């Protein structure tokens, strides 16, 4: 497939890695924000091919992992109602709530369906006018254009039996929170290529300048990733802290302005709690008051929910890059993809799942 195969060319990747080895003179800590990149890095063993001085820490960019437990429990409560068809991206079904997951709701007779696109929910709504269709609207800036369009179209077409449980999160406030933490060790960021496809990378320029930290927009294939690392290390070695684009075939500085316009029309900034990490000011998107009738959290009264995390799970530390998944005592023992204790073991973007899937059992 065009634009995939050529960026997996082993010879090209090796040469870029050689160049990283050649220019590295000191220890550096880099964070890849996006869980999709974490999976590529672990799958291709890129972290093991880097000079010993370069440490890659895995960031919080796993939407499934950071969706707050309260919302997972709320989703489970809504999905259990007989009048509801609950729809979601597949990844969310196995995320552990306080007592069970959405897959269990389905096994118990709940109508839980995986959709490919949020627009599918509108079709389901039109075919089932006697039921309430609820979509679990999670994700970073990448899924926001799709979710915003579903709301906008439901409104335009007057579809009243559709609503969304919204849990959108944004990358720049998370980077700011990480860099403001006294425990921060990260010296450069590989920023998430597809978040930037939508939003552009102008939002990162004030952050790079204020914290003196290089940020390189990076793609997902091996050649894209080593290129992003090379550009970041070069900046660190030169003492520069700029925003650079290692993914120009897909990302522009201004991003997709039409998508941004619809996101702005439907969503507004709000504070958001990140699972395992805690509240981050202004780090989320919620529905604007004009679209309140599509807010599932307002439409369904689920009463008071008591939430409890597994005491063994160290996902918060993993998501902040302070613990490697295989350093969690439960990793591969009490916690496996079949019996996950935390979301990072479930998601196709979770760091724990990446370590497990690609056989990183020992340190």
């Amino acid at each position: 497939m065009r634009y995939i195969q050529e960026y997996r060319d082993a010879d090209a990747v090796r040469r870029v890695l050689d160049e990283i080895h050649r220019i590295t003179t000191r220890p550096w800590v880099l964070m890849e924000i996006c869980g999709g990149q974490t999976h590529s890095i672990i799958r291709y063993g890129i972290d093991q091919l880097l000079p010993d001085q370069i440490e890659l820490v895995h960031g919080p960019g796993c939407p499934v992992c950071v969706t707050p437990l309260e919302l997972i429990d709320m989703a489970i409560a809504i999905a259990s109602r007989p009048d509801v068809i609950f729809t979601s991206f597949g990844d969310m079904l196995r995320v552990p709530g306080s007592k069970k997951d959405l897959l269990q709701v389905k096994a118990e007779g709940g109508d839980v369906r995986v959709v490919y696109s949020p627009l599918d929910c509108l079709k389901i709504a039109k075919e089932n006018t006697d039921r309430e269709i609820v979509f679990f609207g999670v994700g970073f800036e990448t899924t926001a254009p799709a979710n915003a369009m579903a709301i906008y179209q439901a409104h335009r077409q007057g579809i009243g039996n559709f609503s969304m449980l919204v849990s959108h999160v944004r990358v720049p406030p998370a980077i700011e929170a990480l860099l403001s933490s006294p425990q921060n060790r990260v010296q450069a960021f590989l920023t998430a290529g597809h978040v930037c496809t939508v939003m552009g990378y102008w939002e990162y320029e004030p952050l790079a300048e204020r914290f003196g930290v290089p940020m390189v927009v990076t793609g997902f294939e091996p050649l894209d990733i080593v290129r992003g690392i090379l550009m970041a290390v070069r900046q660190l070695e030169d003492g520069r802290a700029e925003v650079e684009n290692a993914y120009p075939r897909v990302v522009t500085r201004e991003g997709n302005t039409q998508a941004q316009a619809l996101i702005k029309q439907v969503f507004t900034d709000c504070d958001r709690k990140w699972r395992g990490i805690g509240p981050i000011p202004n780090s989320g998107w919620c529905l604007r008051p004009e679209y309140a009738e599509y807010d599932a959290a307002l439409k369904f009264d689920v009463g008071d929910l008591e939430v409890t995390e597994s005491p063994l799970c160290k996902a918060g530390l993993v998501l902040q890059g302070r613990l490697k998944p295989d350093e969690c005592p439960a990793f591969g023992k009490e916690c496996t993809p079949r019996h996950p204790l935390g979301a990072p073991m479930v998601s196709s973007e979770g760091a724990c799942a990446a370590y497990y899937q690609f056989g990183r059992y020992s340190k």
Partner: protein
Amino acid sequence: MCLGIPAKIVEIYDEGGLKMAKVDFGGVYRETCLAYVPEAEVGDYVMVHVGFAINVIDEQAARESLETLLEAGLIDEKTADHLMPD
């Protein structure tokens, strides 16, 4: 969820006022919404996320960035030819 996949547009049509397309993910065909890439044409490659094209892949930028690698000696001519087929 954030892993976009490149796909080639094979057919464009209108559905309820939305610009939609049939796209080819290397042999697997799916429906994708083109509302955010109104300039996209049949034959273009787009980056697809959860049923939406979020950008048209810039062939020119792809070539230029590979040429930078070539000039820096990070890839050789043979690899470049392989990376930039005409």
